[in-house]
């Protein structure tokens, strides 16, 4: 398959690994922001190819993971309302909410929850069910936001009065701010010498929004594709920047990402959404200007306006380390319930549920291998 197989070449990966070994003469801690990258690192065993001095810190770029229990509970409340059909991405279904009630459990108890592949399907459900109130549970980073925008604009154009959107779209730069400004980053609990920038988010926002982190926080950032060759090359680019004392935004994913991003998608997002003053993230806390809501003129499509939805913050299960894992303080295997009380089949926290969650990645790939070699602790 074009654009995939040539970026999975094993011989080339070995050469890149040899190059990394030769050039990584110092010590490096890099954060891959995006959960898709975390999964690629695990799936292809890339961390085993890295020299012991290059350590990957997994970031918070997993939209299912960062959604706090309080917001999920609101979606569950919506689904329980008589006459409401809640349309959700499949990823959200098994995330436990308050008292470990998930959307799956709520559905078993009589709530109407429909799994959809995207916002386009929610439009279809609304057209086919004029006597029901259909709500789309919109989650995601900048990659997904414009797809919700298309559906909102289409609903407005069609005058659909039975479709609304429960908007939980969040912003990547705000999460990077939170990581860099965290107590743990200040006191040295976590160390991040550079970032692998999220490739698909950047198809929309471009690479320009990261320039202030390169300039002000003096961190190199390389926007990367998702295949193994992409990631190894991006890590090599970060090593070279560190070695040369540079801190710039570089783009490894040039086949899909340009500096200015997708202008059409950005314009559509601007027409549809505005910043929320603050938003609670799992693990990162309540962050200012870090999420979006529908603009006032689209209030008729805003589920939070249409339905009464009180928000109650709910703490994570005390045994679950999702919060620390999302901040990069812990690895999934540092959590005491990893793979025992918490598995993808019976998850305690969101990081074990999502196909982009770090815990799910560690559980799916390589949990049966021998105990971590001493070199991995370097």
């Amino acid at each position, binding site marked *: 398959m074009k654009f995939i197989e040539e970026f999975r070449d094993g011989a080339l990966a070995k*050469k890149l690994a040899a190059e990394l070994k030769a050039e990584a003469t110092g010590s490096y801690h890099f954060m891959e922001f995006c959960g898709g990258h975390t999964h690629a690192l695990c799936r292809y065993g890339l961390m085993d190819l890295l020299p012991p001095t290059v350590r990957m810190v997994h970031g918070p770029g997993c939209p299912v993971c960062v959604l706090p229990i309080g917001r999920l509970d609101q979606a569950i409340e919506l689904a329980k309302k008589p006459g409401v059909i809640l349309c959700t991405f499949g990823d959200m279904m098994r995330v436990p909410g308050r008292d470990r009630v998930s959307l799956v459990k709520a559905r078993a108890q009589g709530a109407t929850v429909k799994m959809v592949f995207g916002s386009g399907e929610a439009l279809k459900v609304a057209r086919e069910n004029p006597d029901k109130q259909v709500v789309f549970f919109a*989650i*995601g980073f900048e990659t997904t936001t414009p797809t919700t925008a298309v559906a909102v604009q289409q609903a407005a154009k069609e005058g659909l009065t039975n479709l609304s959107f429960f908007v939980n779209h969040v912003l990547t730069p705000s999460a990077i701010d939170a990581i860099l400004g965290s107590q743990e980053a200040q006191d040295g609990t976590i160390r991040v010498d550079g970032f692998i920038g999220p490739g698909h988010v950047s198809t929309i926002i471009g690479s320009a929004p990261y320039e202030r982190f390169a300039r002000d926080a003096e961190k190199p950032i390389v926007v990367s594709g998702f295949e193994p060759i992409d990631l190894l090359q991006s890590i090599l680019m970060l090593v070279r920047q560190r070695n040369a004392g540079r801190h710039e935004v570089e783009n490894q994913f*040039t086949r899909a990402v340009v500096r200015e991003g997708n202008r059409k998608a950005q314009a559509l997002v601007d027409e549809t959404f505005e910043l929320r003053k603050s938003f609670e993230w799992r693990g990162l806390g309540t962050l200012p200007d870090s999420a979006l809501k529908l603009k006032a003129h689209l209030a008729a499509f805003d589920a939070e306006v249409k339905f009464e939805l009180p928000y109650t913050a709910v703490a994570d299960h005390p045994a679950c380390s999702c919060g620390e894992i999302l901040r990069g303080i812990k690895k999934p295997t540092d959590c005491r319930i990893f793979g025992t009380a918490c598995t993808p089949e019976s998850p305690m926290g969101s990081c074990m549920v999502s196909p982009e969650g770090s815990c799910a990645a560690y559980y799916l790939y390589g949990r049966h291998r021998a105990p971590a070699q001493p070199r991995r602790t370097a």
Partner: protein
Amino acid sequence: MCLALPARVKALHDGQLATVELGGVRQKVSVALLEHVNVGDYVVVHVGYALTKLDPVEAERTLAELGRLEEAAS
């Protein structure tokens, strides 16, 4: 959620829809987020929407740079 795959545009339809193919599997997706798209283009598909076109020249360039590394290493 941010997972996306490259697929080739096989046909364009009304209503900003296109049929794309990946490894023999066909799917109808929205191309509402793209400025221009033609049959034969490769696009990155996410939750039923094409996010951007893939640039084959840039893909070749990335691989060519790695090829140079390959020569240097061998």
